[in-house]
C-alpha cells in the first residue's frame, strides 16, 4: 500500500497524486496519513482505487467520487461524499451535516451517527447510517435509499420526492409530504441487500418505510389560493 502524508505535502498534492492514477496503475491501494481535519480530501477521484484515510477529515471528503472505494477511519465533517457518482465512501466514526448531499450514485456508509440534513437532495445514492440521523434528513430527497439503523430527528423527509427512507428506531417527526408506507416484500429484499453491502448486521424486519405522499410536488388546483 502506498502512503501519502497529508501534513507534510498538503491537500492539493495528495489529491493531484490520486487524480493522476488510472484503472491500470501499479498502485491501487493508498493510505493517507495525518489528514488533520483538512477539507476536500480525496475529492473528484475517478479510478477504481482503494483509499484509506487514517484519521478525522474536514468538509466535503470524497466529494464527486467516481469508482473509488474510500474509507475514512475517523469522523467526517460537513458534506462527506457530496455529489458522489459511483463507488463507495465509508466513515467508521460519525459524520456532520449534509452527508451524501445531492449524490447521484454509489454507496455511503456511516457507521456512527450522521448529523442534520443527511441525504439532502439525494439523487440516486444509497446511504446507510449505523446510528441515528439529525433533523431535516432526506430533505427534498429525489431518488435512492436512505437507511437509518437508529433514530431520525425532526422533519424527516421534508418535501421528499421519490427517495425511499428506512428507519429502524424512532422518528422525531415527519416533514411536509412525508408519510409512512407499507413495507412490501420487494422493499425487504432491497433493504437486506443494502445492509449486507454496508456490512451491517441488522434485521430488515425492524425497519419501517417512509416516502412521499406525492401531494406537494405536483401542482394541485385546490391550492391555487396559497400562491
Amino acid at each position, binding site marked *: 500500500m502506498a502512503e501519502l502524508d497529508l501534513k507534510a505535502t498538503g491537500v492539493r498534492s495528495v489529491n493531484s497524486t490520486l487524480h493522476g492514477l488510472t484503472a491500470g496503475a501499479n498502485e491501487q491501494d493508498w493510505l493517507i496519513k495525518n489528514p*488533520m*481535519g*483538512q*477539507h476536500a480530501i480525496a475529492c473528484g477521484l475517478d479510478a477504481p482505487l482503494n483509499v484509506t484515510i487514517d*484519521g*478525522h477529515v*474536514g*468538509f466535503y471528503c470524497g466529494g464527486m467520487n467516481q469508482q473509488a472505494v474510500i474509507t475514512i477511519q475517523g*469522523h467526517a*465533517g*460537513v458534506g462527506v461524499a457530496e455529489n458522489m457518482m459511483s463507488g463507495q465512501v465509508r466513515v467508521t*466514526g*460519525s459524520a*456532520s*451535516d449534509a452527508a451524501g448531499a445531492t449524490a447521484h450514485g454509489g454507496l455511503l456508509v456511516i457507521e456512527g451517527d450522521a*448529523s*442534520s440534513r443527511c441525504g439532502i437532495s439525494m439523487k440516486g445514492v444509497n446511504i446507510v447510517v449505523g446510528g441515528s440521523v*439529525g*433533523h431535516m434528513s432526506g430533505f427534498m430527497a429525489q431518488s435512492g435509499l436512505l437507511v437509518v439503523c437508529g433514530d431520525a430527528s425532526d422533519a424527516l423527509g421534508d418535501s421528499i420526492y421519490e427517495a425511499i427512507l428506512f428507519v429502524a428506531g424512532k422518528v422525531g417527526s415527519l416533514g411536509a409530504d412525508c408519510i409512512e408506507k407499507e413495507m412490501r416484500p420487494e422493499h425487504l429484499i432491497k433493504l437486506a441487500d443494502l445492509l449486507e453491502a454496508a456490512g451491517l448486521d441488522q434485521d430488515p424486519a425492524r425497519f419501517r418505510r417512509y416516502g412521499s405522499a406525492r401531494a406537494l410536488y405536483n401542482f394541485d388546483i385546490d391550492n391555487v389560493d396559497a400562491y
Partner: protein
Amino acid sequence: MCGIVGLYLKDQNLQASLGALFAPMLIEMTDRGPDSAGFAIYRDPVGEHQTKFTLASDDPDSDWKNLGTDITKAFDCAARIDPQGDHAVVVIDAEAVAAQAWLGKNRPGVRVVGSGRSIEIFKQTGLPKDVAEQFKLASARGSHAIGHTRMATESAVTTAGSHPFATGLDLCLVHNGSLSNHNHLRRQLERSGIVFQTENDTEVAAGFMTLKLRQGLSLHEALEAGLVELDGFYTFCVGTADGFAVVRDPIACKHAVLAETEGWVAMATEYRAIAHLPGADTARIWEPEPHKIYTWGSVH
C-alpha cells in the same frame, strides 16, 4: 463565515501552555475570517476589591501617558498598567462602575474592551496570525480562552466591531452567524441600562447575557433565556470567570464541533482547528446538538 474557537483547560498543569495550545486554533480559522481577530484569556485573577480592565485606544501614546498617576490621584489607590500596543491591561483597586465612569470623562478616546477580575481581551483588524503575534498569544498562560476570526458582514471592519464582545464583568461571547432581531433587543436592553459601543449584532447577545446574569440567573439559565429571545442563526461560545459554554440555535446551520479529553475541552467551527491539540486523535469528538446548552466549570 467567521470562525470561533474555545479552549477550556481541565488539567491545571496545562495552564502554562494555554496560549501555545490556543494560538494554532485561532490561526487555523484564518480562511473563515481574515478581516480581524480577537481573543479573551482568563488568567491571573485580581483581588476581590480590584478590577482588571482591558482598554484600547486609537491614540495610545497620549492615552496611556500618565494614566497610572491620574488614576492613583483620582481614586487614591494603587493602579498597575501594562500597555500592549494600542491595548492596555489596567488593574485598579476600585469598583468597575466608578472606574469606568472616570475613564469615560477623563480618557474619552479610550474603549473598555473587557473588565472583570480575570478576563483580558485583545482584538484587532488584520490576519489572525498578526493579531496573535502582536499580543503575544503563544506565550500566554491561563485557564481558558475564547477566540474569533471575523469575515465582516453585519458591521464595518474595525477593532471595535471585532469579537469577542464583553458587556459585563468577566463575561465574553463569540458568535458565528447573524441575529435578526438585534436592533429590537438592543433598544430593550438599553432601557434596562446596558450600554453598547457598536451596532454589531453579537454585542447585543453579550448584552442580553449580561442583563440576565445581573438579574441573578446562572449562565445556564441565561443561555436558556437566549434560546427563547434571540432570533437568527448562531453558534455561541461563552466564557465566564470560571465557566465555559457552547450553544447553537434550533436550526443549527452554523458549524460547530466539540472535543473533550481528560485534560481539556475544545470548541471550534471546524475540526481542523482542534486537530493540532495533543490527544485530539483520541478525544471524544461530537457535534453539539441544536437547541442544547453545553457547559463546563461553574455555570449553575
